[in-house]
């Protein structure tokens, strides 16, 4: 087993363990910190896969943005998070059963399938090529993503604003 594989398994283990804690931990605060592990692990997987730009983006947006946002959400609604205690989760056996079903279904589909493998897996930096594609072939999606961000900003700002007396 090469060093690549060891690093890969390490990150995979971190993300799986982190996400397991994130969904199973009875305390929502602990769940958020486990989520940090999961997101970090996924960023590592991206890095090992040669997607350097995505790995950075994952850390900046998910760890720096979404996670902080969720943490704020918990701080602001914190009183209940503790008061709820063990009532935090419901029908866990059912959830695990559904999840196991989905997992086995996905694996089954993957095992039976052949997919397109071509080109060489390289570890070249991707940032330049991504920039060219974003402002080239994908320019419409890029423009509309910016419209989307403006819309989300307006919507979220309106929704959280308190009613002035």
């Amino acid at each position, binding site marked *: 087993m090469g060093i690549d594989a060891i690093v890969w398994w390490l990150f995979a283990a971190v993300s*799986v363990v982190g996400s397991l804690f994130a*969904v199973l931990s009875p305390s929502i605060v602990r769940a958020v910190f486990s989520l940090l592990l999961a997101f970090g692990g996924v960023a590592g997987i991206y890095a090992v896969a040669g997607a350097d730009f995505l790995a950075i983006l994952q850390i900046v947006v998910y760890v720096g943005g979404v996670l902080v*946002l969720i943490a704020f959400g918990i701080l602001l609604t914190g*009183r209940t998070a503790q008061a*709820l205690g063990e009532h935090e989760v419901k029908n866990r056996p059912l*959830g695990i059963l559904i999840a196991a079903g989905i997992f086995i279904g996905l694996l089954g589909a993957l095992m039976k399938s052949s997919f397109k493998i071509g080109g060489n897996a390289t570890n070249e930096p991707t940032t330049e090529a991504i920039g060219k594609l974003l402002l080239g072939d994908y320019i419409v999606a890029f423009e509309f*993503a910016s419209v989307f961000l403006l819309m989300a900003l307006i919507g979220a700002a309106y929704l959280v604003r308190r009613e002035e007396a």
Partner: protein
Amino acid sequence: MSIGPYHYLGLAAALFAIGVIGVVTRRNAIGVLIGVELMLNAANINLVAFSRFSGGLDAQIFAIFVIVIAAAEAAVALAIILQLFEKRSDVDVDRARTLRG
């Protein structure tokens, strides 16, 4: 043995299934959101894997859009959750029961 596409896809399937557990079992709306974020991450791992093993960057571009949009969506979701908390002092999705029929 070296890491092939099936490793990535298996990992993604695991994360997706774990995310489903979160969505199904959490009462707290923020907990549900965490589950959904994990599922989106799983989809992105798939995309990155396909990008690595098929040589194209298109999947990575798609993953960038997913990350950007998921983040903004989370912001909107939290805005609505906070507003619900303001009105009702809890964010239990199961007790959101004013609407029935």
